[in-house]
């Protein structure tokens, strides 16, 4: 492995949904990378393609969605064209996943212990006792009180926040190097959200795990991520260090997005608003997808699609730079 090779490299990824009226392009030519131990936030409105990107990386794209172009490399090795069985082995061992609804990740019929032990034994050669002890340590480390008593409980016996902790334990069970976390806190109450974010951050730092954090919540990104990619209509609008994107956004969309978040302590009568709504996949305009809503739109935006290029401390796809 080269010294400064990224852990994950996505090149020109394109995801399509063929339907009877034509082909919808849900993710259009996006490239991004995640370094070892780094937390990359992927933020965007619903339908921006952020969850699909995550799903494509772990190989769980639901048909009829398909990868129509580009490549996904883990440690320089292509993983987007692997047969199902090989991808299944990578998923779990090298890439873990945390979803919005913890119930979809846990089998309601099995005890927590069985699910953890099975996952551990599938990917390592631990004995049953070793695996069980490891499971216990995991539950302890994700902050489940009285872990030894809760190990043999069923998922429904846990509260929502505790369940999400179990899912995190499950995702961390075999020390993956990358975790795809898709809206991990959206279904949780605010006070639990903060706990889960703190936990995720601490564990990743301890284990050196890289995280791709997919969310619509800029607050979560600001607290957790090192870098952030802002997606709009299937494309990356801006990507850069989280601090630069939050405070010094260059893309008019990112800029408007930041202004539209009400902030406690700064009283404003009127929030900055971006008029209109993100276009449906069937109605993406030519040129820059943001052009109908952009306050700084000019001729070139209507005709040509901008590529990501450096501007200030971030990379922006906007003809202004």
């Amino acid at each position, binding site marked *: 492995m080269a010294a400064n090779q990224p852990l994950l490299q996505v090149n020109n990824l394109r995801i399509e949904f063929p339907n009877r009226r034509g082909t919808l392009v849900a993710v259009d030519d996006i490239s991004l990378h995640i370094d070892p131990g780094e937390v990359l936030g992927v933020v965007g409105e619903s339908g921006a393609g952020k969850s699909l990107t995550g799903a494509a990386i772990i190989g769980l794209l639901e048909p009829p969605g398909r990868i129509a172009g580009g490549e996904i490399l883990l440690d320089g090795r292509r993983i987007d064209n692997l047969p199902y069985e090989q991808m299944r082995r990578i998923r779990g061992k090298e890439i873990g996943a945390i979803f919005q609804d913890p119930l979809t990740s846990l089998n309601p019929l099995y005890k927590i212990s069985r699910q953890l032990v099975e996952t551990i034994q599938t990917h390592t050669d631990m004995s049953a006792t070793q695996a069980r002890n490891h499971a216990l340590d995991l539950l302890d480390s994700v902050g489940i009180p009285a872990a030894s008593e809760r190990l043999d409980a069923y998922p429904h016996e846990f509260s929502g926040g505790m369940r999400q902790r179990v899912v995190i334990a499950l995702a961390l069970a075999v020390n993956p190097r990358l975790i795809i976390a898709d809206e991990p806190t959206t279904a949780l*109450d*605010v006070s639990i959200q*903060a706990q889960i974010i703190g936990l995720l951050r601490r564990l990743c730092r301890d284990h050196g795990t890289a995280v791709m954090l997919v969310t619509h919540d800029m607050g979560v990104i*600001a607290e957790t991520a090192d870098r952030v990619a802002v997606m709009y209509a299937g494309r990356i609008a801006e990507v850069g260090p989280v601090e630069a994107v939050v405070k010094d956004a260059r893309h008019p969309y990112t800029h408007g997005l930041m202004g539209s978040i009400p*902030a406690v302590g700064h*009283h404003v009568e009127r929030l*900055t608003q971006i008029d209109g*709504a993100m276009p449906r996949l069937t109605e993406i305009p030519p040129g820059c997808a943001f052009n109908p809503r952009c306050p700084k739109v000019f001729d070139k935006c209507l005709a040509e699609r901008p590529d990501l290029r450096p501007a200030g401390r971030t990379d922006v796809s906007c003809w202004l730079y």
Partner: protein
Amino acid sequence: MTIAAAPTTPHDSAKLRVHGLKRYFDVSAPWLNRVLEGRKRQLLKAVDDISFAIEPGKTLSLVGESGCGKSTVARCIVGLYRPSGGSIDFEGVDLATLRGRAAQAPIRRRMQMIFQDPFASLNPRWRVFDIIAEPIRAFRLLRGAGAIQRRVDELLGQVGLAARDGEKYPHEFSGGQRQRISIARALASNPDFLVCDEPTSALDVSVQAQILNLMKELQRELGLTYLFISHDLSVVYHMSDTVGVMYLGRLAEIRSAADLFSEPQHPYTRLLLETIPDLDVIGRHREPLAGEVPSPINPPSGCTFHPRCPLANERCRAERPELQPTAGGFVACHAVAEGRLPPHPAS
């Protein structure tokens, strides 16, 4: 003097006054199971003795985590639930004294609701025009197709949609546009009081800003009074004059927004404020308070927040605190009453 004990004067200026509101749900096992297995009846006290008042043209927000009863309060006020106790006065008229649809109609016309889910709050089989015209027809505010037509067109314009949008069906609109339709329907009967139940929590932030701005503009133009229900403190901060923090069916603290956000007193309010992500401080390391909201079926004794409270003592475990006056409002906390509260770090 507590809010609950505040006398309702005959010349009460409040638009809406809620007094000792209770709403219990029967969550008992079915009758046969109770008889055969000897189980007891179980009551879920979703709202347990809540009192507040909203002045005309102002916004009062109720915040809290899921299950704290804030939506139940909203539903009691608009008449979707019958209160188990207490009273709701609209401009001094006790709603419980109005029996029957005809008697309630004049109040219902003036008190409308905006719902959370823009995908469920519009009948998918109805054209937008008919959805917005429904209150006009139901209250017989206008006669004749032409008059209704003009009014609906006007309402669509008021919420930033085009008159021709009335011919479309809800599925042709985005979430934000649907919420605009929902607002137009709520405004159709010329109400002066709107109950807004998490109106933006299903929307993306950029769209949320549009809806919040629209709601503020409408409030200014039409002199509307809002009861705003939300779990998002930054939205509440932006919208409210007064904020009530609810925990397990009770008000923990109800104060002017300025006081509550600058110097929160109840430990639960402080916890909630602590969870707001601050975009100014990137990567702030927080030490969130442990624990989760307990089940409302068997709430803790005394102050229901005591298992999570760093200031809890014997009295908190045994005795339920009542709302006591404090700067800009009321707070229900023994630690505050006894002066045991450490100063808020931000103030």
